[in-house]
């Protein structure tokens, strides 16, 4: 028998609690990532009126195990003339950068483990004052996995993919940063737990109600940052064979794969914390910051997980619906579409904070609506944000069909 009281005493120390949470998170997230691949295939199948993987285990639920075994036991070949050290490091970098973002995410708020009314620990692996910037930094490093893999492969298609990916990530980091800036300005803190708490409680609403446009733009940029369709130009099969991982196989390809899904989970959790109240649901007892019991912690973790899963579903749904952007459209969307909108929004948010109306739903939401309407009007009057034709091409003047 494990001495429950003794374990509780150890867990009351934040360090050991964090260690336990980190260990649990690694296990859970590896499982979720593996099942993401399963559900990606399932959802693609459902959308295409198919059934999807259903052979390994009941409903195909053991498919991730089979996939994993396949990745491990396949021949691990290294092509001639690749840059060997970088070729080996690249998948590791992609995978690790996908995984280390989880440590700062707030999973369940404050917890009182022994029920004596005193908050013992925070259900978070680490709670730095700069958690948001940490996530941003990890995200901005994410491009290295793609770049190294593409460059080291000594394959021109892989290099194209790497260069596309670099330009894409640099471009979309700017609107992303501005969207985050809007939240930070309103909340006044970079701690993720503070950001959650600011959306919780009497008279507070989730940030998505205040700044829906920023939420939407952040969603778009996360699609771009995680290299998901419609922004998956780094692995455009029709143009670039397999993109940056053309030369990769077996376990190394598997790590790229897992890294992409881990990145998606981080992105979903990120947007959940920033705009959807993290572990909070309004009017549900047990999901309020005052509830600090262990049961409430698990409920909060469950709610957070459900929100993340909803976003993952959205990622997959969009992937199997939308076609890919062309590269000039991608760039124009970022620089001429999202960036000006973000700058206007950021300026407006700063103004609201200055006059003290940043928590006022009517003002914040009203400004957003006005912005969307003006963009609509502008769009009707002027050249579209994303056009079907390249901007600099001469107009086609030709004979019409006889």
């Amino acid at each position, binding site marked *: 028998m494990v001495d429950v009281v003794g374990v509780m005493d150890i867990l009351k120390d934040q360090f050991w609690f964090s260690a336990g949470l980190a260990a649990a998170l690694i296990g859970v997230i590896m499982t979720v990532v593996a099942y993401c691949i399963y559900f990606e295939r399932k*959802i693609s*199948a*459902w*959308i*295409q*009126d*198919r*059934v999807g993987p*259903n052979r390994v285990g009941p409903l195909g639920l053991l498919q991730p195990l089979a996939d994993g075994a396949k990745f491990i036991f396949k021949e691990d070949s290294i092509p001639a003339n690749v840059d060997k050290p970088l070729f080996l490091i690249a998948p590791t970098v992609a995978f690790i950068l996908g995984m280390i973002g989880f440590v700062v995410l707030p999973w369940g708020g404050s917890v009182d483990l022994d029920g004596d009314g005193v908050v013992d620990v925070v259900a978070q692996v680490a709670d730095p004052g700069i958690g948001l910037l940490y996530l941003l930094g990890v995200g901005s490093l994410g491009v290295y996995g793609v770049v190294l893999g593409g460059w080291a492969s000594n394959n021109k298609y892989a290099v194209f993919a790497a260069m596309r990916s670099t330009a894409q990530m640099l471009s979309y980091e700017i609107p992303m940063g501005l969207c985050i800036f809007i939240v930070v300005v309103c909340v006044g803190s970079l701690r993720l737990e503070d950001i959650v708490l600011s959306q919780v409680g009497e008279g507070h609403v989730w940030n998505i109600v205040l700044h829906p446009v920023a939420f939407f733009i952040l969603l778009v940029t996360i699609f771009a940052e995680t290299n998901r369709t419609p922004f998956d130009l780094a692995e455009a099969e029709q143009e670039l064979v397999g993109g940056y991982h053309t030369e990769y196989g077996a376990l190394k390809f598997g790590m790229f794969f897992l890294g992409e899904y881990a990145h998606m989970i981080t992105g979903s959790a990120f947007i959940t914390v920033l705009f959807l109240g993290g572990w909070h649901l309004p009017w549900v007892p047990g999901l309020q910051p005052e509830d600090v019991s262990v049961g409430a912690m698990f409920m909060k973790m469950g709610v957070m997980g459900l929100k993340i899963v909803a976003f993952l579903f959205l990622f997959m*749904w*969009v992937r*199997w*619906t*939308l076609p890919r952007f062309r590269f000039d459209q991608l760039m124009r969307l970022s620089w001429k579409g999202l960036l000006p909108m973000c700058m206007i929004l950021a300026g407006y948010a700063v103004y609201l904070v200055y006059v003290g109306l940043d928590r006022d739903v009517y003002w914040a939401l009203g400004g957003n609506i006005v912005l969307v309407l003006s963009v*609509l009007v502008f*769009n*009707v009057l002027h050249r*579209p*944000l*994303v*056009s*079907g*034709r390249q901007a600099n091409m001469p107009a*086609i*003047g*030709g*004979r*019409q*069909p*006889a």
Partner: protein
Amino acid sequence: MGGRAKVPSGVVMIRDEDIIVVDEPDLSAAERLYLPQILGGMRTTFRHMFKKKITVQYPEQKRTLRVENYRGVHRLNRDEKGRVACVSCFMCETACPAHCIHIVSGESPWEDREKYPIQFDIDELRCIYCGMCEEACPVDAIELTPEYHLVGLTREEMIFDKEKLLQVFDRTCEEKPRKNPRITGYAGTGDRPALPPSGGGH
């Protein structure tokens, strides 16, 4: 050199007046914003998620085939007396575009024909299942069956000899009876009536 570049024979030049230049249609305001279109697309895919799946779960479920013209594994037909119907005329071997049929003929032990196949091999891995052999056969002795479950562990195993092809007939003659057993004329007066040429039941 001067003059017109010589056009190689066989190359069709596209004349200017044949080229049709088409301008892209202008997008409407809603289309330019992209979002309504995206949402429409997502609605479509979402609806498809709950539609009836059209996939056939193969080993458990099987598609119903049109047995009269499905082109699967070959068989060598037997006549009424259970002998191989082939008269070893080499028409099928000649007609085969993939050269997968190999016949060794010998003098027939039976009175109603001169030759019969001592050996009759079909390489099922080489075959392209075009059905030319069936068309070519003057006595309708070789036919393609609706059997498509064709697997093997070695290449040798996939070369079907006479016995194996006759076994295929035994397996499938219920499902797809022989098209016209009387066509050859040598069969004499069998007690089975001729079947209509369109063939079979299911």
